[in-house]
């Protein structure tokens, strides 16, 4: 399994090279450059040319990319072309905010959704199931930024219970976590319901019931135990996405996270900051996906044995 993890991490390298190239190239293709906002009317032609030269904008894009990658090879993510701060310092000062927001929303989503999904599956076809389905349908089709604004209007504007913007206290977390977590509740609940329904006809459940295992234990150990894989996949995907920062939620709540930082970097053509953020996001995302794969093996002995037996299997080519 260690070998598998190492291969997965190494496979990241070509992906990061390609992704950074694509992002660097695309940001470069965009009309306008990073120096546009720095040029004012007092500047002479030489000043402007010097400014261009300072950012290597007089050279082809591939040269700049090469320089950037050379720095990256030495562990240097570069400095933002606008603020001058290093990408790492900007990212690491803002990432905890994104991390906590993402974790709390996923925890909220999981804690509410799994019991709700089991409940719906247990009562499949009944009015409760239909109500839950309707609720999850609304949840997945509600734009999170709109929900965020609605919560702002009511709980920050009219009732004044929670602050409207980030102020460092726990109260500031409540609204964004809910706005972010609501769609997750819906998504995980749907997945849980269908996964439970999928295993609900299995023979081992009948066996368990026949030998007198209490229904509660049948549900939580036998049924949920065999339904974990799709649920974990869903939760892992959600964690991977939200750790990259939810730009819209951060925009609504003026949240000092990395999602909106990336939006601003693209708007200002700060390709170094944009690329650096994307690289770090890619790494985080890949680590989460790897963790999900390893958790599969932990919850499902069948998958664990597949890892061990992998060497013996040979693909038969047609």
């Amino acid at each position, binding site marked *: 399994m260690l070998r598998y993890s190492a291969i997965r991490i190494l496979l990241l390298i070509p992906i990061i090279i390609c992704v950074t190239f694509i*992002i660097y190239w695309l940001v470069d293709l965009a009309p306008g450059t990073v120096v546009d906002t720095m040029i004012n009317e007092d500047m002479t032609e030489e000043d402007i040319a010097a400014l261009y030269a300072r950012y290597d904008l007089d050279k082809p894009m591939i040269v700049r990319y090469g320089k950037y990658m050379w720095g990256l090879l030495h562990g240097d993510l570069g400095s933002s072309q606008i603020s001058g701060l290093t990408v790492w310092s900007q990212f690491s000062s803002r990432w905890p905010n994104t991390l906590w927001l993402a974790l709390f929303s996923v925890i909220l989503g999981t804690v509410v959704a799994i019991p709700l999904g089991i409940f719906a599956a247990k009562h499949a076809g009944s009015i409760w199931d239909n109500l839950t389905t309707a609720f999850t349908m609304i949840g997945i089709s*509600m*734009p999170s930024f709109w929900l965020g604004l609605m919560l702002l209007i009511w709980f920050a504007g009219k009732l004044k219970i929670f602050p409207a913007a980030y102020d460092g206290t726990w109260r500031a977390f409540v609204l964004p976590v809910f706005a972010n977590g609501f769609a997750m509740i819906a998504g995980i609940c749907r997945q849980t319901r269908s996964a439970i329904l999928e295993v609900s006809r299995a023979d081992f459940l009948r066996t368990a019931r026949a030998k007198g295992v209490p229904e509660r234990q049948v549900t939580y150990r036998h049924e949920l135990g065999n339904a974990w894989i799709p649920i974990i996949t869903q939760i892992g995907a959600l964690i991977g996405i939200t750790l990259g920062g939810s730009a819209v939620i951060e925009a609504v709540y003026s949240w000092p996270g990395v999602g909106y930082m990336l939006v601003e970097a693209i708007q200002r053509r700060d390709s170094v900051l944009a690329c650096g953020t994307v690289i770090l996001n890619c790494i985080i995302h890949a680590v989460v996906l790897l963790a999900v794969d390893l958790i599969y093996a932990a919850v499902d002995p069948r998958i664990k044995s597949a890892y061990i037996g992998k060497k013996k299997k040979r693909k038969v080519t047609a």
Partner: protein
Amino acid sequence: MSKKKQATASRISDQYRREPRFVMTWKRLRTNVGAIIGLIILIVIILSMLYSFFFISYQDITKMNGKNKYAPPSWEHPFGTDEMGRDLFKRCVYGSRYSVAIAFGAVGFGLVIGVFFGSISGYFGGIVDMVIMRLTDIISSIPGTLLGMVIVTILGANLLNLLIAVGVSCIAGFIRLSRASVLTVRSNEYVEAAKAIGMSEFRIIFTQVLPNSISPLIVSATARMGTSVLAAAGLSFLGFGVAVPNPEWGALISGSRNHLTYAPHLCYFPGLCIMALAFACALLGDGLRDALDPKLNK
């Protein structure tokens, strides 16, 4: 007993052979309340879009009325008026064209490209498969919102580019899905038979393999329409979408942010419109999945 069973089986299969799949699917879809609700909402939105083409001009939605700013909803203005006294209801109805175009256009764009590469990848296998799948991995490791923002920045903020931006982020999903369904179909006897009678490979893909692996694609595409509407609205909300004077729903919500305290209706209604469209697509997608799922053919 077994003879009788056989006779029934052959009669049923005869009957089903004559009945086109479309009719069968529709019959099953008809019994699904959720899918019908979704279909009705979708039809209402499309009809109101068609209405706006003929009866709401661009002048109507940009006509300012300084005396009637921030009016709350009333009979005259069902959704109220905005900061320039423009009628929000007309703007929302006019704006339906952007979201409907995104729902169908972006998904159609992603579907055509995704299915093309996915079926090639699944059918031929080998090195072609490997190259296409590695490229797919790379595309899908760039977050959709980011890719969308960058594409809109490069191409410029208008409807077509927003459509492409949202469409590109569905491609990877469709490649994977069509590859997987082609892989399951590829080894069937009828594909072998088609090979044996000397059909060309592209003809086999498009006449034999794809029609038999299309169900999951239809389901996923319908569900994807809803998420595309949400993604496009999010991009517009961040300022990477349809440019400001045009009443795209996400952009309307973005514009309402400065007036939340005294005119919250500017935020309520465009959001409800987005939700209605996404909700309709989600319901329809769910209904189609149930109707097309062979496991449910009891």
